[in-house]
C-alpha cells in the first residue's frame, strides 16, 4: 500500500514537472516566435525636382496644428508648410544679420518658439511660429545636436576638444542651468559625438555617432543602460592633416515615439546603410529593425507618431505612418 502511494506521488510529481517543462518551452518559443514588425505608409511628400520647394533640407519639426517647419541649408532658409505640404512662409536668407543664416542646420520647437542651430556659429537662432526672428541664444561652442525642452530650456550636445563631453541645459541667455557629463568610448577627435533625445521624465538617450553605443541616463545623470547593436568593436580611423578622425559613422540620429520607444537611425555600417532604423524599448530591449525607403541623415517622430525622413538626397521630405504589427 505504502509502495503504491509512493509510486502515485512520484508519478504526480513527474507529470507536474513534465507539464511545467512543456508550458515553459511553449511560452518561451511563442515569445521568441512573435516579433514586432514595423512598416511605413507614405502619407505626405514635400518637395520635388520640379517645384523647388526644398533644395537641401536638414532639420524638421511639426506643431500641434500639423504645420511642418524645415531648415533648408542650400536656400539659407527656414520654411513653414501647411498640413497638405504647401509652402506658406519662408524666412532667413544668406547673411549674418538678425534672422539670417550662414549654415542653418538642426531644428526643434517649444510651445512658442522655433530653435535653429548654425553650423559655423556658437549660437541658436530663435523664431516665433510666424517665422519672425525673436532672439539668439549664445553658446560657448558649436552645436552637435540639440533638444528643446521648454521656451526657456534647451539641451545641447556641444562640440569641444575636451576628453569628457557634456550635454548642457541652457536657458534663453545661454547660461548653463545644469550639465550632464559622459565619457566617450575612446579617446580621439569626434569619438564622443552624440545624437540625443529626452523623454518626458527627463531621461536622456544618446546614440554615439562614431561608436557602436546607445545609452540611457536618468535625470540625475546616472547611466541606466548601455547597448551595442551591431557588434562593432572599433570604427576605422584615418589621419587627416594633423588629426586622426573616425571615417565610419555608426549611428546618425535618435528619436522617441509617444510610448517612449527609442528609434536609432544606423549609418554606413548598418546592413542597409543610412536606412536601417533600430527600435528599442525604454529599458533598452531591441524590439525591431525596419528599413527606410531611401537613405536619410535624420529621423523625426511627431506627437502623433508619424515618422519623417529624407528622400532624393534632401530635395524631398517624406512623412510616413508607422504600422506596427506582431509577427509569428
Amino acid at each position: 500500500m505504502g509502495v503504491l502511494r509512493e509510486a502515485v506521488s512520484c508519478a504526480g510529481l513527474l507529470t507536474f514537472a513534465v507539464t511545467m517543462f512543456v508550458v515553459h518551452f511553449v511560452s518561451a518559443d511563442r515569445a521568441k516566435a512573435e516579433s514586432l514588425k514595423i512598416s511605413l505608409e507614405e502619407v505626405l511628400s514635400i518637395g520635388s525636382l520640379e517645384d523647388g520647394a526644398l533644395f537641401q533640407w536638414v532639420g524638421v519639426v511639426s506643431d500641434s496644428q500639423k504645420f511642418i517647419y524645415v531648415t533648408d541649408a542650400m536656400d539659407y532658409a527656414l520654411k513653414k508648410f501647411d498640413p497638405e505640404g504647401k509652402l506658406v512662409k519662408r524666412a532667413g536668407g544668406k547673411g549674418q544679420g538678425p534672422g539670417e543664416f550662414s549654415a542653418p542646420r538642426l531644428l526643434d520647437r517649444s510651445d512658442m518658439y522655433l530653435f535653429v542651430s548654425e553650423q559655423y556659429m556658437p549660437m541658436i537662432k530663435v523664431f516665433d511660429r510666424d517665422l519672425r526672428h525673436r532672439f539668439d541664444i549664445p553658446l560657448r561652442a558649436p552645436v552637435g545636436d540639440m533638444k528643446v525642452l521648454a521656451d526657456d530650456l534647451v539641451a545641447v550636445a556641444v562640440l569641444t576638444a575636451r576628453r569628457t563631453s557634456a550635454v548642457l541645459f541652457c536657458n534663453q541667455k545661454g547660461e548653463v542651468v545644469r550639465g550632464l557629463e559622459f565619457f566617450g568610448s575612446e579617446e580621439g577627435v569626434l569619438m564622443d559625438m552624440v545624437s540625443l533625445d529626452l523623454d518626458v521624465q527627463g531621461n536622456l538617450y544618446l546614440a554615439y555617432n562614431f561608436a557602436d553605443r546607445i545609452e540611457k541616463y536618468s535625470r540625475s545623470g546616472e547611466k541606466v543602460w548601455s547597448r551595442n547593436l551591431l557588434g562593432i568593436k572599433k570604427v576605422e580611423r584615418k589621419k587627416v592633416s594633423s588629426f586622426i578622425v573616425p571615417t565610419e559613422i555608426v549611428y546618425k540620429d535618435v528619436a522617441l515615439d509617444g510610448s517612449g520607444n527609442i528609434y536609432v537611425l544606423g549609418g554606413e555600417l548598418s546592413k542597409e546603410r543610412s536606412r536601417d532604423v533600430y527600435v528599442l524599448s525604454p529599458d533598452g530591449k531591441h524590439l525591431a529593425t525596419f528599413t527606410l525607403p531611401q537613405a536619410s541623415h535624420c529621423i523625426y517622430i511627431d506627437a502623433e507618431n508619424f515618422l519623417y525622413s529624407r528622400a532624393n538626397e534632401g530635395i524631398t521630405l517624406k512623412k510616413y505612418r508607422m504600422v506596427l504589427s506582431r509577427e509569428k
Partner: protein
Amino acid sequence: MRRNQIRIRDVRKGTNVKGWIFVVLFCVLFCSLFAVDVHAGECENALVRCINDPYWHTTLAGPVYCAAGYLFCKKYVEG
C-alpha cells in the same frame, strides 16, 4: 597558301577581340574602384581644405568648426 592566310587573320581577329575585352574590363573595374574611393574620401578632403583654410587659422576654435562640418558631411553626404 591563301587558306593559311585566312586562318592567321582569323586567329589575329580572335586575339584582338580578347585583348579589347580585357582592356574594357580593366577600365570598367579601375574606374568603378576609383569612383568609390573618391566618394569615400569626400568628407576627409573637405576636412583637409577646412583645416588648411587661412580663415580658420585666425581663431583657436577653428578646428572645432571644421569638425562640425565633417560631422555634418558624414551624416548628410556619406553613409
